[in-house]
């Protein structure tokens, strides 16, 4: 499967980059058909490929490709992780601290904002859910607005939020975490409301026969019953947190994978963008996997099926 994807990717590189490849060939003096770049602009990629099949050797090694070839991305990934840290002037080996040209350093920055936002969002989500489950007013008034809140394109507002937080003197990690928290609280609310309400009538009645108070019901019944729902939500929330952190890093060019992506895009370093992108997706996969691992551990400790 992976091989198939790589194959398709390599193949797709040819038509994606054909315009640039032919322009370069033309500058180098080869005869290209059609001859003018203006005429080529309006032609389909595949017909260009077909008409100039001899000139396509450069497709996989352009400096500013529209679509970099997999090995270019892989090389960039290597360069901006191991190579930079071990051999680079600012790498950890030479300077004693992580290099700001390495994705490890930027991944770390993004992760710290992700975690902070995730924690804030989760705590907020659980608190809201507990409130919603225990108070009908909160249920009736907050739930619809929680849905509305998610239709606001927060990602588009990120720069404004950051500026607003500047104005009350908050900078650095927290603005990013706020955006992360905003994106991650919603899945937690939805999942936890479901989870806290998941005990059936019989389980609740049992508590009533013991004459247990709301707090006891919460700690002894609702919270344990909601754990599977919590983890399902946490997996969504942590991925959302990561996106939030990256979004928060775009406008504030102070490091992080988001800043990396923008900078790469700014200077046309396509493979740098792709490397940061893959790194982000890999981090997301790792975080989700970690949450899943924690879930399995917790559920096992709670007597879940092995």
């Amino acid at each position: 499967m992976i091989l198939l994807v790589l194959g398709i990717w390599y193949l797709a590189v040819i038509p994606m980059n054909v315009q640039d490849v032919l322009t370069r060939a033309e500058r180098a003096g080869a005869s290209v058909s059609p001859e003018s770049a203006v005429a080529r602009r309006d032609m389909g990629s595949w017909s260009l490929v077909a008409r100039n099949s001899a000139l396509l050797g450069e497709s996989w090694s352009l400096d500013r490709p529209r679509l970099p070839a997999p090995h270019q991305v892989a090389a960039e990934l290597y360069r901006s992780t191991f190579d930079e840290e071990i051999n680079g002037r600012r790498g950890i080996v030479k300077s004693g601290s992580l290099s700001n040209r390495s994705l490890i350093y930027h991944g770390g920055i993004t992760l710290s904002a992700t975690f902070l936002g995730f924690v804030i969002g989760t705590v907020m989500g659980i608190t809201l859910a507990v409130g919603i489950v225990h108070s009908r007013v909160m249920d009736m008034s907050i739930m619809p607005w929680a849905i509305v809140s998610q239709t606001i394109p927060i990602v588009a507002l990120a720069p404004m939020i950051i500026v607003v937080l500047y104005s009350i003197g908050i900078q650095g990690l927290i603005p990013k975490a706020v955006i992360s928290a905003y994106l991650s609280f919603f899945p937690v609310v939805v999942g936890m409301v479901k989870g806290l309400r998941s005990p059936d009538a019989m389980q609740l009645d049992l508590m009533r026969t013991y004459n247990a108070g709301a707090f006891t019901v919460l700690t002894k019944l609702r919270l344990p019953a909601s754990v599977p729902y919590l983890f399902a939500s946490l997996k969504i929330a942590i991925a959302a947190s990561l996106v939030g952190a990256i979004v928060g890093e775009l406008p504030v060019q102070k490091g992080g994978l988001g800043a990396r992506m923008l900078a790469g895009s700014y200077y046309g370093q396509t493979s740098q963008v792709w490397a940061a992108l893959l790194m982000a997706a890999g981090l997301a996969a790792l975080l989700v996997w970690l949450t899943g691992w924690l879930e399995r551990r917790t559920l096992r400790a709670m007597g879940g099926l092995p």
Partner: protein
Amino acid sequence: MNLVLLALLIWGAGFAFNLWLARPARAQSRAARLAVPLIFGATVLVMWELIVRGLEVPQVILPPPSEIAATFASNISMLWGDFVQTILKGALGGYVIGCSAAFLTALLVDRYTYLRQGLLPLGNFMAALPIVGTAPILVMWFGFGWQSKAAVVVLMVYFPMLVNIVAGLSETSAMQRDLMRTYAASWGKTLLKLRLPAALPFIFNGLKVSTTLALIGAIVAEFFGSPTQGLGFRISTSIGQLDLGLVWSAILVAAITGTLAYGLAALIEKWLTFWHPSQRG
């Protein structure tokens, strides 16, 4: 400062009224279920207005709702143009393409197990790509028009939809499937008569999540290049011009559309999955 106190007072009053409305006897009525969130929203707006005025928050940081409303009213035709560009062309186009593609893929994945094993993990990985990274790439590939916005939306809605549809299609119980086997029903018949109806609650879950994703995708993609129209363009340009009233008006358009779209999906869901326990209340 007095305004701030007034704001807190109004908040208290709204809350008390809601408490009264939410009492068990009344909470069931349709009017109360509608009124409570509306009163909540209204108190938030009034508080916003009073606090912004009371604390003299600069207009360029946070304008009061009254000013937003005024800007909104005087720019209706421009906002309509943005709405058409971003929502009708970008978001809706991408939504339709993305959801249909996910549906077709789900059928394929369902039919051929080896595809599922390969495609779903890949899908999960791709779904983790942050849009802020993919959007500039897609703008580079598909140009500045609505097509690139639709592409971003497709990428955003495709995997949540796929995951939901695939989960939904396997939602049937062994007994329900065995019943079909006793009728010697074909794959197609089983799909049509059993698995699709059973999958509907999941599909609608996906559709609801995707409405907001589509909206956000279309707007954010405009930050990375657009024609001189569109909600994302408006938000970004107006921030630069310090016209915060217009920024919030554009956000308002997005929020209203998102809420309506979500509501519409929920309504259709209610209508089509009336049989599901969650809809029977």
